[in-house]
């Protein structure tokens, strides 16, 4: 009896979650595939979208990883004041709303930005950020820090004794230690960045477009929003799913999610140093900080002028994020409690599904019955929740497994029962992971500009969408104000959630 009850409490929510995930990923895919007009084939425009998607992702991956190597090396061998802050800064882009970063990059590299002002002063023709170059630039902004962290881990994984031995033998470090390490770590980093760029929508939406810089996801959005060509959107969604699924399973095992810079706080003791280290460190800091500083500089003064519609949109964003976070945490916790390989794979499925594909599928499913506009926000909640699920699961399930291994028998021997075990033992002990996962989900959801763009009209606008509309209308000051608000909300929500998990429950 009791054993049965335990089994049901462990299994039922997990299977419900699994069913929901399957419905959202494979279910929407089925809806898409059923509707796809395979017979008419892919047009020349579609092929060029596929080509551009792959090429820009490849270019972004190569540029990010190649630039990451000198930065990671500098971080690996230099100890300086502010190093911890820089490592933390390298973690920030993960929770930075894409559209905020894009606006910041526009302020630096755009038409009236710092770069072109400088170029103009020396009589050089201005450069344009729009198009393929801008898409790659924005992707490098987001993924260079990730690549640095991945490769820095590689550097720190070289045992100190080897550096000592090599120094003593006066052996070339680069040849005997660093090149072999890079050969091991670079393929993973390249693949991760490639995959992330393959599914990035907001960057292509804001900086891409036109026949030469349209990604598959952007083409899906255009097919629905402008042409209302559901058959073509569905066909493109199938293509996008195939693209992602191919790379996702490989990448899943090498994405690091180690908190924000934990374990990266030491350096390698070594005896070769180069002055170029400082150049690289200063350049990467400027590259990351300048766009954000420009946002603050332009946005803060226009904060008081933000319209009521912006604050309404912000409120909607927060509500959507709260609902998505509750859903994600519940789903991740129930999957973690169930455990097992199958559940882990189901939890990882959203990685392969793009938000736009899910959105298209849901659009096709609800369209015959209700006006998609009326379900824009619930759909956004679901999709945001499930896009964050793999990360939350990665954070929670090892912790839950550890608690099981350490205290499972004790709890059973004490006859605590499933609910008391959950309430008294598991929840207090996963608080830290749970808070971090909540922070990530809140920030990701607040900053998300994806599926909501498919469905919403101004009446359902979230803050990122409102910001996009302002940018489209060239109201850049108002957009910068909204960006400051969005930045504050996303980072603030992360901080509020994450700090609830700080403090050691076991101390005192």
């Amino acid at each position, binding site marked *: 009896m*009791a054993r049965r009850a335990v089994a049901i409490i462990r299994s039922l929510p997990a299977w419900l979650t699994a069913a929901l995930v399957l419905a959202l990923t494979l279910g929407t895919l089925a809806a898409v595939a059923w509707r796809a007009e395979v017979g008419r084939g892919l047009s020349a425009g579609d092929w060029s979208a596929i080509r551009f998607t792959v090429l820009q992702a490849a270019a972004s991956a190569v540029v990010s990883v190649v630039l990451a190597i000198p930065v990671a090396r500098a971080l690996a061998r230099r100890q300086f004041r502010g190093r911890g802050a820089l490592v933390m800064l390298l973690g920030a882009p993960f929770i930075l709303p894409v559209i905020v970063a894009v606006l910041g990059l526009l302020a630096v590299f755009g038409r009236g930005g710092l770069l072109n002002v400088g170029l103009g002063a020396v009589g050089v023709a201005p450069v344009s950020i729009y198009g393929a170059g801008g898409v790659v630039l924005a992707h490098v902004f987001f993924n260079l820090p990730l690549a640095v962290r991945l490769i820095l881990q590689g550097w720190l994984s070289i045992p100190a004794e080897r550096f000592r031995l090599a120094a003593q033998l006066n052996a070339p470090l680069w040849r005997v230690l660093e090149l072999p390490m890079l050969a091991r770590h670079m393929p993973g980093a390249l693949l991760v960045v490639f995959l992330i760029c393959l599914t990035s929508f907001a960057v292509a939406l804001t900086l891409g477009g036109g026949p030469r810089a349209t990604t598959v996801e952007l083409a899906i959005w255009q097919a629905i929003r402008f042409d209302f060509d559901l058959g073509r959107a569905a066909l493109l969604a199938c293509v996008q799913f195939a693209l992602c699924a191919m790379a996702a399973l490989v990448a899943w095992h090498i994405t690091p999610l180690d908190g924000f810079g934990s374990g990266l706080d030491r350096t390698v003791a070594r005896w070769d140093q180069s002055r170029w280290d400082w150049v690289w460190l200063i350049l990467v800091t400027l590259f990351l900080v300048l766009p954000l500083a420009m946002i603050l500089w332009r946005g803060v003064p226009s904060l008081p002028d933000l319209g009521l519609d912006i604050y309404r949109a912000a409120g909607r964003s927060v509500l959507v994020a709260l609902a998505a976070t509750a859903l994600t945490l519940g789903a991740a916790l129930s999957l973690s409690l169930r455990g097992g390989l199958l559940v882990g794979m189901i939890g990882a499925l959203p990685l392969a599904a793009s938000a736009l594909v899910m959105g298209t599928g849901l659009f096709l499913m609800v369209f015959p019955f209700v006006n998609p506009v009326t379900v824009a926000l619930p759909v956004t909640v679901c999709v945001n929740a499930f896009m964050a699920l793999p990360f939350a699961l990665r954070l929670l399930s090892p912790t839950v497994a550890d608690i099981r291994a350490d205290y499972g028998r004790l709890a059973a021997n004490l006859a605590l029962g499933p609910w008391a075990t959950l309430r008294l033992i598991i929840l207090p*002990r996963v608080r830290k992971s749970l808070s971090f996962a909540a922070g990530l989900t809140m920030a990701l959801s607040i900053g998300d500009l994806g599926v909501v763009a498919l469905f919403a009209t101004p009446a359902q606008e979230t803050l990122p969408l409102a910001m996009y509309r302002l940018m489209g209308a060239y109201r850049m000051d108002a957009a910068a104000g909204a960006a400051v608000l969005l930045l504050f909300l996303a980072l603030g929500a992360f901080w509020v959630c994450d700090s609830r998990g700080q403090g050691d429950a*076991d101390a005192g």
Partner: protein
Amino acid sequence: MLTLDNVTVSKGTFQLHTCLQVPPGITAVIGPSGGGKSTLLAAIAGFELVVSGRIGWDGIDLKGLVPGQRPVTMLFQDHNLFPHLTIAQNVGLALAPRVKLTAQQVARVDAALADVGLQGLGERKPATLSGGQVGRAALARSLLSDRPVVLLDEAFSALGPALRAEMLELVGERMAAQGRTVIVVTHDPQDARRFADQIIFVAEGVAHAPQRTADFFDYPAPAARSYLG
């Protein structure tokens, strides 16, 4: 009386066979590592599946009872206290599956803590206690539980010899003397010699029937002789 009647326990490819009875008092389980000592305790506590035979307590078949329903309280090698709960909350879990206790329960917890020499430390977290104090707190919880069988699976092996002796003395005074059946897995034959009433020797997948401690050490069986050296 705890009875293991032609019991076979299966753990992966490893199998443990036994047929024995354990009387009240302290029984030490000794033998080479990998011989099945912990498996024996895990089977009694309900953590390992018994594939054949029967484990009984006072005529009741324990088959089908989950660990929490058995007349067994167990202390493990480590992780005996939940680090996020106070000492009093940890000990109180022997009385009810909650951390807020009634006044009467609080009084019993305090009494149990005083019994093991931890009066006044109930509000502390385990991390602030020494290894010996943590052992005592876990012992206090076992004292408080009214279950007649107490299993100690190398519960004190992380402690030094003096502390370990102190713990086993407490076990003798507070548990064995009350008529409870205490089964202690130990790596140290000297501990067994000093504190146990009888010895179960476990080696190569067989748990032998208990022998009186003096007999075991004075006239060891061939297998035990090679273990004792």
